């Protein structure tokens, strides 16, 4: 009787906590969307930000966010997957590996502002890449790489040992087993992890303040030559992203509609990240279903 009561008590408490958590989360997202949604319009998404007048948009910022995300993923995905393969399949369980794992953990829990400072010292000042998309993407790579290594390692480790053995027993080499058996089996997990980490990168601001900068040159969306200074594709130009823009508008903008612009931009950001999360789930499930035929 007593243990029954304790059981019901704990279920009740856990449920309360869960409801509270979900409530806070929904409230937050709901508030941002409620405040910002009315400000989102095609014009808002497709016009330039203004310096003094009301009615500025977020076109360049939105583009910059996606472009920096793309460049960051270009660096992190191959490196992270290679690192994950190494950690899961090749690293011997010894002190050195343990040390590397601790380093990765520390790296992934570094405050992003510190990563930004590091990026400024190394990429902006030492390599003279100035405030640029390249500097920003590299800082984000530092920030994101440990996560991807971890995701990839975990996904590979969750593939049953049987699969490794049967690959080898069929006369495959270790590398071929990894390539043709383990990676495809781990693919849904890796994909989900990649997209979720993309959401984190997309919303990052502190690491970009001192690396990608707070301004964007006047972009000419008809000039796709990546070497032109006003081309959207140029990686050596400074680039203010959406979340940096929110910070900047809130902090020291003199436009009269600063509040609305900030809320509007925040709502767009939240929607994008929601989209990343939902698509991560859907894609992961789809691939999984395709693989197992169920």
């Amino acid at each position, binding site marked *: 009787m007593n243990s029954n009561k304790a059981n019901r008590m704990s279920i009740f408490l856990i449920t309360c906590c869960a409801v509270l958590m979900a409530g806070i989360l929904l409230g937050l997202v709901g508030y941002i969307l409620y405040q910002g949604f009315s400000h989102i319009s095609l014009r808002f998404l497709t016009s330039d930000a203004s310096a003094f007048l009301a009615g500025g948009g977020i076109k360049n910022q939105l583009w910059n966010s996606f472009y920096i995300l793309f460049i960051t993923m270009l660096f992190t995905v191959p490196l992270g997957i290679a690192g994950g393969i190494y950690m899961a399949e090749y690293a011997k369980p010894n002190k050195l590996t343990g040390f590397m794992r601790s380093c990765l953990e520390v790296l992934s829990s570094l405050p992003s502002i510190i990563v930004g400072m590091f990026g400024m010292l190394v990429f902006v000042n030492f390599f003279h890449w100035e405030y640029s998309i390249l500097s920003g993407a590299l800082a984000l790579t530092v920030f994101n790489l440990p996560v991807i290594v971890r995701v990839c390692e975990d996904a590979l480790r969750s593939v*049953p040992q*049987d*699969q490794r*053995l*049967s*690959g*080898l*027993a*069929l*006369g*495959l*080499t270790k590398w*071929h087993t990894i390539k*043709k*058996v383990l990676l*495809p*089996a781990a693919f849904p997990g890796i994909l989900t992890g990649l997209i979720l980490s993309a959401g984190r990168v997309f919303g990052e601001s502190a690491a970009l303040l001192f690396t990608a900068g707070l301004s964007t040159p006047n972009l000419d969306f008809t000039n796709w030559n990546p070497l032109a200074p006003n081309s959207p594709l140029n990686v050596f130009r400074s680039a203010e992203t959406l979340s940096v823009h929110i910070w900047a508008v809130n902090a020291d903008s003199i436009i009269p509609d600063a509040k609305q612009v900030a809320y509007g931009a925040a709502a767009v950001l939240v929607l994008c990240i929601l989209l990343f999360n939902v698509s991560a789930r859907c894609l992961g499930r789809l691939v999984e279903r*395709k*693989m*197992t*035929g*169920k």
Partner: protein
Amino acid sequence: MLTQLKENIVYPEPKKQNIIIEVNELNVYYKNNHAVKNVSLPIRERSITALIGPSGCGKSTFLRTINRMNDLIPGAKCQGEIMYDGINLLDKKIDVVALRKEIGMVFQKPNPFPKSIYENIAMPLKFAGIRGKKRLNDIVEESLYQAALLDEVKDRLSQSALSLSGGQQQRLCIARALALKPKVLLLDEPTSALDPVSSAKIEDLLLSLKKQVSLAVVTHNMQQAARIADQTAFFYEGEVVEYNDTSIMFTKPVYKKTEDYINGRFG
């Protein structure tokens, strides 16, 4: 050599088959655990050798040593000789990848890759250097036929192998191993995860396969050993207590231990 089609060749069935693998004084250790002790055992050509014995007596270890899967276990060490085709398989210079194509292995739990039925067989073939769609299709079909699975799956080759039943999955794993045209097939409790009907199918399959390959089968099922094996080896605490023709082993075992085990008095 791996690609020769063998279906048209009729093999004679001599009374006592040649020895294809001769194990001499094999010792296997896991760190300090002496798992296989001084085992000498022949595996005969085109026949089924059953390995029986209580849990933990070293049957799987013995089997894994033959195709060098034991190399993968950290701390595993072996001494002795496993002669095959005039060479010692324990020689460090052996190309284990090539070896495992000739001496295939099937595991206890069916473990097809999460790919299509076709790819499960074709992928290792492609890695073995077999090219050409027609050729691959032929071998896939032939090995599915040999594994008595073709009729059940021929209309769904592009479906995921994981959509098959457990018994079908196990036959697919056998087909996958057969596709590489191994000389020897090692099976570690291939039916212990399956229902009786699927087990019976696999038993029939093994009996039909011995026309082409030599088989070594670990089993905990005495009736199964009696039904399918030509020779039987009884392992106990890492040693081979008795090895003989199955018919003799199951009717007039020489040792009391063997008799007790076969009659279910321990283990």
